[in-house]
Each structure stands twice: as C-alpha cells, then as structure tokens.
C-alpha cells in the first residue's frame, strides 16, 4: 500500500542552487532559509520516504511550445539534468519509479485527469534544487539522492494555464492514486516554486500575499483555489503562479501537522518560503 508521509513546499530560486554548489549556505543573506532545513532533515530520518513526487514547472528546458502539455508526468526509469543556458552542468542521473508512476497515470485517467506521459524527461533546476535541499551533501556540491523521483510538470509557461482549483484537484487525485497502489511505497510530495516574483522585474514581491498563502496552505488550502490565475498574476507576479505546485502538493498531502515553516524575503527577487507538513497517521 502506498502511504503519503508528508508534503513540502519550497522555493527553487537558482541562487539557492548556486549557494549549495559553492557550499555557502551559512554565508548568504538568506542563510536562515537553509538553516530551517535542519528540521526537515531530522524529519526525513524519521519518516523515511522512498519516493519523492515533485510538482514543478519546467523552465524552458524539456518542453517547448511545439508540444506544451498542461500536466505531464514522468514515467521513466531515470531522469537527467542538462544545460539551462548557464553552461553545461555536471551530468547527473535521478532514479525514477516507473511502476508507481504508471499506476498513478492509470488512476488519474480513470479519475478524468488526462495527463501527458513522458518516457524521457530532462529535469531542470526547479525540481533538482528541491531534491538537493532535502538531501544535502556533507560538504561542497550536491549529495546522493537516496529516493526515487517522479517529476510532475504543471504548465506555468504558456497561458492559458490550469486554474488553482484544478491543480488542487489534481493533487487530491494523486493522493488517491498513491493510496490505491498495491505495492509498498512511502511517498513525500513536493511543490517546488514561488512564492511571489516576476522574472525580468526586480522587486515584485508581495510579502502580505505570501504570508496569507502560507497561512492558507496550512489551514485552508481550499481558500486559495478561489483565486483566478489573473488575480494571482496581479498579486504575486507572473511567476507567482508557481503557487500551483504548492496547491497540488497540498491536495495530495492533506491534513496533518506543520513540522516547520519559514518565510524569508527576498531570496534574489523572490519571496522565499518552505513549509513541511507531516501526514503520517498512527506512526507519530
């Protein structure tokens, strides 16, 4: 049986990845953001997930406008990174979980979510940064990722985009899919994105809206599904729409209790945030 052990939302600003690569987590102005992951790492030792499902938005790496799905799920045995324009990165491979991923696809289709399936998928910084925050190296560079990964891309690139309500419902359907899996899996859901920011524009951070978002993600995620996409753009910037990934995460990882949470603004030009929710039942 599949078990949802928890949900985590995090920002994935490229500057976070650069600080990790340079082993400068304690020296950057947003050091408290990294420090807050201490609680996450202790929790991971306890909750022992073996699969991390990452909701993220592709940043013009794997998907182009010739074929732009609204929701796309990785069903591959592994995923690789690639040059995103900053220069060729050290090649990395991330282990997938094709068996669970295909089960989720079958369950989603029966649940009327017609997702695109990807048997090859290049994974970008939006997903990789989240994994590196969860499983850091002892010293410089990145650690080994000890879990399987299933990337789920939510279109945040080419409007019209899925609504917040639809993303939340997708998450709920994925929660049902995990719980109906016949094998044993302990699954952590990750929403990677946000909070408020707009690429190409500095200073478009809305701290009030970000704090409201965190409060609602914890206590009343349904309230956030009342916003239209355009309202989120006006409140949180064009890339504030990455909030969709947190809503999908929270739809799948429902209930539970907050383990830790931080809001730190700015990280680069973004309202930086992380929240971990423990949804284990009868284990705590």
């Amino acid at each position, binding site marked *: 049986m599949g078990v949802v052990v928890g949900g985590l939302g995090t920002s994935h600003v490229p500057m976070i990845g650069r600080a990790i690569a340079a082993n400068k987590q304690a020296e950057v102005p947003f050091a408290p953001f990294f420090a807050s992951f201490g609680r996450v790492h202790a929790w991971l030792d306890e909750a022992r997930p073996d699969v991390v499902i990452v909701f993220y938005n*592709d*940043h*013009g*790496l794997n998907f*182009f*406008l010739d074929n732009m799905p609204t929701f796309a799920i990785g069903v591959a045995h592994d995923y690789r990174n*690639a*040059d*995103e*324009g*900053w*220069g*060729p990165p050290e090649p990395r491979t991330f282990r997938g979980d094709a068996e669970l991923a295909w089960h989720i696809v079958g369950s989603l289709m029966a649940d009327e979510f017609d997702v695109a399936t990807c048997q090859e998928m290049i994974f970008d910084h939006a997903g990789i940064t989240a994994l590196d925050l969860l499983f850091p190296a002892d010293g410089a560079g990145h650690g080994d990722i000890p879990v399987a990964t299933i990337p789920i891309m939510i279109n*945040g*690139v*080419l*409007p*019209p*985009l899925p609504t917040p309500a639809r993303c939340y419902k997708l998450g709920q359907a994925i929660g049902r899919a995990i719980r109906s899996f016949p094998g044993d899996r302990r699954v952590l859901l990750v929403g990677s994105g946000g909070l408020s920011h*707009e*690429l*190409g524009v500095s200073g478009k951070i809305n701290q009030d809206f970000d704090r409201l978002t965190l409060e609602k993600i914890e206590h009343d995620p349904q309230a956030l599904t009342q916003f239209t*996409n*355009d309202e989120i*753009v006006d409140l949180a*910037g*064009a*890339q*504030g*729409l990455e909030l969709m990934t947190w809503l999908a995460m929270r739809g799948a990882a429902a209930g539970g209790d907050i383990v830790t949470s931080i809001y730190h603004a700015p990280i680069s030009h973004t309202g930086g945030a992380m929240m971990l929710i423990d949804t284990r039942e009868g284990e705590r």
Partner: protein
Amino acid sequence: MTDVQPGKFHPQAALKGYALNRMCFTLNSAESRAAFTADPDGYCARFGLNDEEVAAVRSRDKKRLFAAGGNMYFLAKLDRVPKPQGAR
C-alpha cells in the same frame, strides 16, 4: 499591439512570437549560444524571425520582446547570453 502582461492569456500574443521563442529555446546549448554570439542576425535568420522579432532581440528590451510574442521562460535563455556590443 496592446500591452501584453506576462502570465496572462492574450490571444493576440499567442498568435505571435513562435520563431522568436524557438530561437531562444535553442540557446540552452553552448554551441547555439556561441553561434548566436558570433552572428546574432544571421542566427535569427536561421529560425525565420521577422523584422519586429529581430529588432526586439537586438534591443534586448523586455517590453519589445513581450510585444513581439516572446515568453519570459525562453527570453531568460537570451538573458544568459552576454549582450553583443552596440545593444542598448
């Protein structure tokens, strides 16, 4: 064209900018970035950019790039290529 607000759906913008975005998408690769840097106009011509798109690329001005149908996730690739001399 009226102002395009990134993140919102503008059917008139959706009809534009494909060649511009296609060119920017290729800049993920180091080889393409080198080719673009060596001859920006020639590189744009290979992807069939129209005059408005080429002028917007030359200017690197976001307002013009958005008006030409550019999408920020692909324009970010252009941002990662050092500006050619003479660009304003």
